């Protein structure tokens, strides 16, 4: 065998060693840095910064960032500064979302975790945070199970359940017409939302004229719209979200359907209305939070601050991120601890103060299932209001505790770890 000087070849063994070293480095506790006195309290953010829900995730992030700034300006948390560690969960890959959650907990040693816009990813991340005993706030995943059949002692939710959104809009829609046609996204969120609406409609004497499950990410809704109008309903409900909502409504209005039927739905977002041409901003909907509410203290200040930061008004997503991070801080301050169980106990029943709640009635976390009980905003989309960004007219303010199903009905049974 000739002994030429040569570049060492990467062997399989060397590659495996390198991989193992990299893995060990990732998992190693950062003992040295943690010993420092002013070590910040870290809040992990694992949400949808790219893909279908990128706009929603990014607005959530803006709210979280503002909360962190305010907490630090008011003396930090237990004498330590707060730091947000941001990770992109992607919009639909549960594997990535879970891996990022583990990274945030194991490597960054976050004390709290915020996430996610996507219901399925929220549930997946909830498994990890529950296993690790980390307090986890879900800012914007709506499917009932998160604070229902799959609830956990460490998981709290800011946004509404699909049941709450269905109940809020149903009583308004029944006044318009009894025959409803559903255009529903074919995944957990859509199924539970349609189911909730059909149950509410039944109670109020409404009937289903038809219902179509549409694949997530459908671009062309024309064939569904042709079918919907043939069923001759009084109300067509669009339960799709994000880009799907924009595509469906835009095409419905181009077909002139808004002149023949009442277009409506349950959850609507400012992000979607801003993406629609003015003539397509129509219909009856529920908002989870709105930037224009009369006589809500601190609201104008909040709107002005976000406008200064981003050039746009805050959306419900911005508020959800803001309230999520503040909730962790308020509970930790009350508990005088960062320990999971103690913080979670303090968050149970926690009433958000006016400068965080930013709603007519102070929202609070219901003890039995950790679901926030907020105000719900029912009204109509509008081309433009008093402000170019005033795209929703709130007709009625509904109280969360009166809308939400009882804890028994949600099926949530919290199991706390043994002390």
């Amino acid at each position: 065998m000739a002994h030429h000087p040569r570049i060492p070849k990467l062997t399989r063994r060397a590659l495996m060693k390198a991989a193992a070293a990299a893995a060990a480095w990732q998992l190693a506790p950062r003992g040295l840095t943690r010993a420092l006195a002013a070590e910040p309290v870290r809040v992990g953010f694992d949400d949808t910064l790219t893909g279908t829900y990128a706009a929603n995730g990014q607005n959530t992030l803006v709210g979280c960032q503002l909360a962190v700034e305010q907490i630090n300006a008011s003396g930090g948390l237990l004498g330590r500064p707060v730091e947000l560690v941001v990770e992109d969960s992607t919009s639909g890959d549960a594997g990535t979302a879970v891996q990022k959650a583990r990274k945030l907990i194991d490597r960054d040693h976050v004390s709290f975790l915020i996430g996610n816009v996507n219901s399925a990813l929220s549930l997946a991340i909830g498994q990890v945070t529950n296993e690790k005993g980390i307090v986890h706030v879900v800012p914007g995943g709506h499917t009932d199970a998160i604070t229902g059949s799959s609830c956990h002692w460490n998981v709290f939710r800011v946004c509404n359940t699909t049941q709450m959104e269905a109940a809020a809009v149903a009583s308004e829609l029944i006044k318009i017409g009894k025959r409803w046609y559903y255009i529903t996204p074919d995944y957990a969120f859509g199924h539970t939302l349609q189911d909730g609406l059909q149950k509410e409609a039944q109670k109020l004497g409404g009937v289903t004229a038809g219902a179509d499950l549409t694949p997530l990410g459908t671009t062309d809704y024309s064939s569904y719209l042709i079918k919907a109008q043939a069923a001759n309903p009084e109300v067509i409900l669009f339960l799709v979200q994000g880009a799907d909502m924009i595509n469906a409504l835009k095409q419905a209005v181009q077909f002139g359907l808004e002149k023949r039927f009442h277009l409506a739905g349950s959850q609507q977002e400012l992000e979607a209305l801003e993406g629609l041409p003015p003539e397509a901003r129509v219909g009856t909907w529920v908002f989870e939070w709105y930037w224009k509410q009369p006589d809500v203290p601190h609201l104008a200040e909040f709107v002005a601050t976000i406008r200064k930061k981003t050039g746009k008004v805050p959306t419900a997503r911005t508020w959800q991120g803001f309230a999520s991070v503040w909730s962790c801080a308020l509970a930790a301050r009350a508990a005088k601890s960062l320990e999971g169980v103690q913080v979670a106990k303090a968050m149970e029943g926690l009433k958000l103060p006016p400068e965080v709640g930013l709603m007519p009635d102070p929202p609070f976390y219901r003890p039995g299932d950790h679901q926030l009980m907020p105000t719900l905003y029912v009204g109509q989309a509008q081309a433009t209001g008093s402000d170019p960004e005033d795209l929703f007219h709130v007709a009625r303010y509904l109280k969360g505790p009166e809308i939400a199903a009882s804890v028994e009905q949600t099926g949530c049974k919290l199991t706390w770890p043994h002390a």
Partner: protein
Amino acid sequence: MAQLVLFDAFNGLVVGAFYALMALGLSLILNLSGVINFAHGGFLAVAAYLAYTLIPRLGFWGGLVVAPLLTAGLGLLVERFLIRRLYGRDPLYSLLLTFGLAYVFEDGTRVLWGAQALPYPVPPSLSTPVSATLFFLTGYRVFMVLLVAAAVTALFLVLARTRLGIRIRAGTQDLETVSVLGINVRVLRNLNFGLGVYLAGLAGVLAAGMLGLEPTIGSSLIMPSFVAIIVGGLGSLPGTLLGGLLIGVASGVTTVFFPSATEAVIYVMMAAVLLVRPHGLLGDAARIR
């Protein structure tokens, strides 16, 4: 019921025409260069965003003309500096490159124009239905079908009558011989890539009028185009056109009977074609190696 099926079939043709426009560009590039251009949707999105930016200055029609041309220019540069290096290698290399480029385009548009969907204006003259019965035929959709028909006719005329077109077709058959005959194959492939990207750009500007303009607009539209090519047959542009129209109709008619399968049906169709006729409906059997 019969009327519903008829309406959905007719509407499917309109949607299929759009798929065909995207697929023809992909097909052109695939046939001559053997590159599966995953970045096609990315080019589509770039064109749509460029048109959005140009509309305040040039109006809707100006945007429709200029944005696809600018995008084609970008296509020429991408081919010249990136894709050209990978000819003659395993197709996996160019596939990976264009796959990466698709992400770069998507995130690039997100950085430049924001993640939030933008309202894309359509002239009022086009945004109303043509008749009350055929309410799904808006002025915009009729215009789109006419434009697709014009673009396809022009493309086939270019390929049939012009020197460039004849060379592209000859190159598709046997690139080596074309090269030996003294034709600059590099320039030929470059122009052909630009032409394909131009069609993607045109599709992008048209799509923005019907869909929400947001960074994922391209990736959500790309898959039906690949299916159209496979159903129609590799190497055949008329096949691609036929494939696009067929999947549009199949998807539309499926809505009537099994609404949640509108997406799945095009893949079922692809599988069926591959089983019965592996080279596609009008494809070149010699290309299946």
